[in-house]
């Protein structure tokens, strides 16, 4: 099934085409994104998963291969659906640069999820860095150019570190293929594995917005248009989480599927994770700009994800997947709501949006549902994640216990500022002109209903998660798939 590369190639071709199409760029964007989604869903239902494609006929481990397994297809569908949903928030006419950068981002995030080779992964991350920097700076004003430039510099530095790690891997193990590295990783001694992992993790953590690597997040979120926020969050964020799951848990782990760094390294990761959570929540506490609040909150949620991953148990991984899906859906709803409300109220300060919830209760209720899910309140999707992670953390050790307590305190702080915003939406406001058409309220409502559904009935999602967890637990199947076929 060599045609899997269409997922990457078609958007790239479209990126070039969009230079010439002018006003029809938006239609082209919808067509290509729909093509991607339909293609991925066809793969999902074709029953051929898992399969392996060796690009150009060069067999792994000598050539690059794209392996589609359950984990891959799950994240692939998430990324493409995110692209489509985010496109719907693009309302005005954008110039051609926007769409060509968008296509590059689409193809590179698909590539991140599909690829099975470490250098290819690096390549696609670099591509996505470009595309995101271009998208951030689309507005071309003071804030945007500063934010984009700083993001670019930071990301380039981080990728140079990861390139050093790639070089080290090649020197010691002789291969750059995921499956082959997983096969041979037991031959490494502890010190070199630690060094490689430190260098590689540093660049991954920039994507994951973990403190202290996340200075770019707040400025970038504030400076870009809301649709770009959705792109970064939905496409790049999800691909980044896939990268961490695949690389940390399956490629570099010595035991099956658990995070087995040297003990101190995983403690430091855990420390970073819950420090990120605390800093994210505290930072958002007195913030008034909605976009900055959402940036801090994204930081904190990803901190919880990393905390769950570094706990090293499969129950906690289950919680991580719940938090991933809850954050994904919830942030979509929130960004879409902020998009609509800020158009009516004229600024992104939440105090200016007072009373808008009374006129548009569907949007405000969807926002409240998403906020409650992020806080981990029961009957919403985030609760299942929180209870798994906290439950596993309480008994694992002293540092984990402190982390769990801090995360609970952080969720209390989160409750304060989110419910304060909700309350502001529902309080009495003054009259405003400008209307939000009912169509735009539909999408947040559907996403909020999905959050509610997963929260009330976790069984629906549990089956999917157990399939994914089964795959993470058995990396030898992955290795066999890639190294033996064709």
């Amino acid at each position, binding site marked *: 099934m060599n045609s899997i590369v269409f997922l990457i190639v078609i958007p790239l071709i479209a990126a070039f085409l969009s230079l010439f199409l002018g006003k029809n760029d938006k239609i082209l964007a919808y067509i290509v994104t729909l093509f991607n989604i339909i293609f991925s869903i066809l793969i999902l239902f074709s029953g051929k998963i898992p399969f392996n494609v060796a690009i150009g006929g060069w067999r792994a481990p000598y050539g690059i291969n794209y392996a589609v397994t359950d984990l891959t297809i799950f994240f692939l569908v998430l990324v493409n659906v995110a692209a489509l949903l985010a496109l719907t928030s693009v309302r005005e006419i954008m110039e051609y640069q926007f769409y060509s950068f968008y296509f590059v981002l689409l193809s590179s995030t698909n590539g991140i999820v599909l690829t099975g080779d470490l250098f290819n992964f690096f390549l696609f991350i670099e591509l996505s860095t470009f595309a995101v920097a271009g998208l951030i700076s689309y507005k071309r004003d003071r804030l945007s150019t500063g934010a984009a430039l*700083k993001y670019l510099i930071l990301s380039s530095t981080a990728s140079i570190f990861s390139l050093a790690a790639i070089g080290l891997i090649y020197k010691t193990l002789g291969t750059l293929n995921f499956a082959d590295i997983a096969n041979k990783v037991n031959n490494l001694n502890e010190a070199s594995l630690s060094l490689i992992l430190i260098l590689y993790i540093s660049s991954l953590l920039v994507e994951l917005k973990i403190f202290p690597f996340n200075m770019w997040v707040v400025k970038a979120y504030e400076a870009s248009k809301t649709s770009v926020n959705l792109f970064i969050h939905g496409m790049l964020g999800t691909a980044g989480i896939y990268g961490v799951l695949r690389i940390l848990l399956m490629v570099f782990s010595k035991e099956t599927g658990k995070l087995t760094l040297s003990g101190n390294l995983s403690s430091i990761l855990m420390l970073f994770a819950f420090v990120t959570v605390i800093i994210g929540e505290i930072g958002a506490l007195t913030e008034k700009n909605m976009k900055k609040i959402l940036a801090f909150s994204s930081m904190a949620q990803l901190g919880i994800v990393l905390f769950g991953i570094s706990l090293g148990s499969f129950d906690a991984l289950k919680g991580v997947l719940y938090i991933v899906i809850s954050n994904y859906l919830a942030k979509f709803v929130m960004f879409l709501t902020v998009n609509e409300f800020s158009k009516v109220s004229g600024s992104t300060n939440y105090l200016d949006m007072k009373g808008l919830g009374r006129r548009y209760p569907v949007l405000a209720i969807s926002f409240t549902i998403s906020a409650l899910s992020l806080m981990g309140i029961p009957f919403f999707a985030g609760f299942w994640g929180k209870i798994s992670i906290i439950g596993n953390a309480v008994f694992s050790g002293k540092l984990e216990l402190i982390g769990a307590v801090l995360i609970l305190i952080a969720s209390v702080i989160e409750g304060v500022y989110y419910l304060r915003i909700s*309350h502001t939406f529902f309080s009495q406001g003054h009259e405003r002109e400008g209307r939000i058409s009912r169509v735009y309220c539909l999408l947040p409502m559907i996403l909020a209903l999905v959050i509610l559904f997963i929260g009330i009935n976790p069984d629906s999602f549990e089956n999917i998660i157990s399939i994914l967890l089964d795959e993470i637990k058995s990396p030898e199947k992955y290795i066999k798939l890639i190294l033996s076929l064709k």
Partner: protein
Amino acid sequence: MVEIFIIPLVTAFLLAIFIRNKKVVWPLFLISNLYILLKLWTLFGKWEIEKTIYTNYELFGAKLSFTLSNNPLGWYFAFFSAVITLVISVFSLGFNQKTKENVAPIWMLIIFSNLGIFFAADWITFFMMWELMGWTSFFAITNGRDKALNEAKYYLVLSLLGASSMLIGIILLGALTGSFEIFASAYGLVQVFYSEKALSIAAIMLLLFAFFIKSAIFPFYMWPSKVYAVGPEDYITFMSSVMIKYGIYPIAMFIVPVVGSLDLPKILNTANWIQYFVGYLGAISAVLGTILAIFQTDMKKLFAYSSVANMGYILLGFASMNIVGFEGALFHAVNHMVLKAAIFLTLAAVIFRTGESEMHKLGGLVYRMPITFLTFLLGIIAAAGIPPLNGFGSKWMIIQALMSQKMIIFAIAMIFASTGAFMYLFRALASIFLGQLPDRFKDIKEVPLTMLIPMIIMMIGMLLIGVVPGVVMKPLTTALRAVGYNVNIASWTSLEGALKNSTIDLTLVFLIFLGGFVISAIMYILGNKSETVPQEDNYTGGEYPEEWGVNADRFNYSYSFYQPFKEMFEPLLEKISIDEFFASIGRNFEYMSATVQGLFRRGEGAVLLFSIGVLLLILGGWII
């Protein structure tokens, strides 16, 4: 039994759709509550009903299941809270004519979680309902008005902290005993207590933390006064009578049986240290609540502290670990529901007509709102624990239990608080209803009929429970017997005490009081005719204050009512200011927030921090 849970959800949804149409919303609310009450009535005695929902979600290797079961103690709480809610919802029909915001859909969700909390059979369901109640009550308190935000934020932080502590406690409990079911985990905890002493005590303390926050026990007693002053008044009635009991119910269900089954060493040959711990917290709440209530000038805050004090009494009843004390505490829970609801309905009626909640700005309302006055009078007589109304029976039982267990200090505290209560209760009566009627209130009328009916029902209720305590005690003792306690089913009219040969026949007490009432009525009728004089003559002694340039209103003696008393206790209260402690924590978090924002504002230290991060990773990996 499932209908009991589906109806509130469906109603909440319908109420949310019709939220702008007041004529539909509040009658619908009333009908729902009526249905819930009828359904609960039919559930009495059917203790085996259970409904379990199984899920595939695995926690600690076992699949979770949510169980709702008709457990007797939960039924007892749920039934009586449904009665009170029905009466309040009749009141709400009239009360909400003029309000702009509509608290009904959120209130219905809280009623749903109410039933869920009382009927949950496993801790996870309990926790889910508890959290639901937490955030919905935030929205109910603020109800779209800005002035309520700060106080509601305080309450929200406390509530979320309590829920987090409960989560860790439940996880500990589940790990220690291997089960999340309430009864099974209680049994398991007793088995495991001696081998894992520290962890068991930690689990109990974490759970107690959450329950104390909800029931406003010291040191978390500040939130009722903040919240009750700013919420919508009919919802506040519900909150102060029903919701404050949410912490009491799990203590009765779980903590008391566990502590009772443990064989802890007794201190001073009277009680073990957990009993002393709970008892002292209860005693301090009772005394502190009473003292703080005496200082208040806002009537809602005053009765908020009164609620805190009453929760202290209930805790003292639990701490006695005596069956009479236990029954007395649970009886007092229902009594308090009735009398607090009556009092707060009265306050709501006063605010509805006058818009004032500061007591020294009111006065003399007895002439304009007589039935309200009568309800309030009966309410404070009940609150003070005077026969023949309902407060007497439960307080008597608790004091009996404390005395029989030789816990003298607690008995002294309770008697102090109980009699001291009369100081603030009378102050409220005198300031609001007696005294001089301000000119601007000359024309206010009594509240409309839909609001009078609930108050009359409450009056009848208080009298009924006071004379025939079996109305509450019979269900209570049946429920306790079904749970497994060895009690006799109470009779209709007499109460048993804990000391030897102490039984009270309340009908006899009532007849004595009735006799006294009749005699004084006869003396009043046969005495000299009374002469009506203008109000000012009573206290200006025939002079005209306008001659001196002052207004008659200024002489209303209810401002700074208890000034000497306040001066006496001021130094004590300044030293231990819990409020200041929590406020300073909040302020510190806000400073930290500004610092963090400043850190992220610059953005070009990015690479520097990145390098520091890598260095930290290297250090962590190699050196530590």
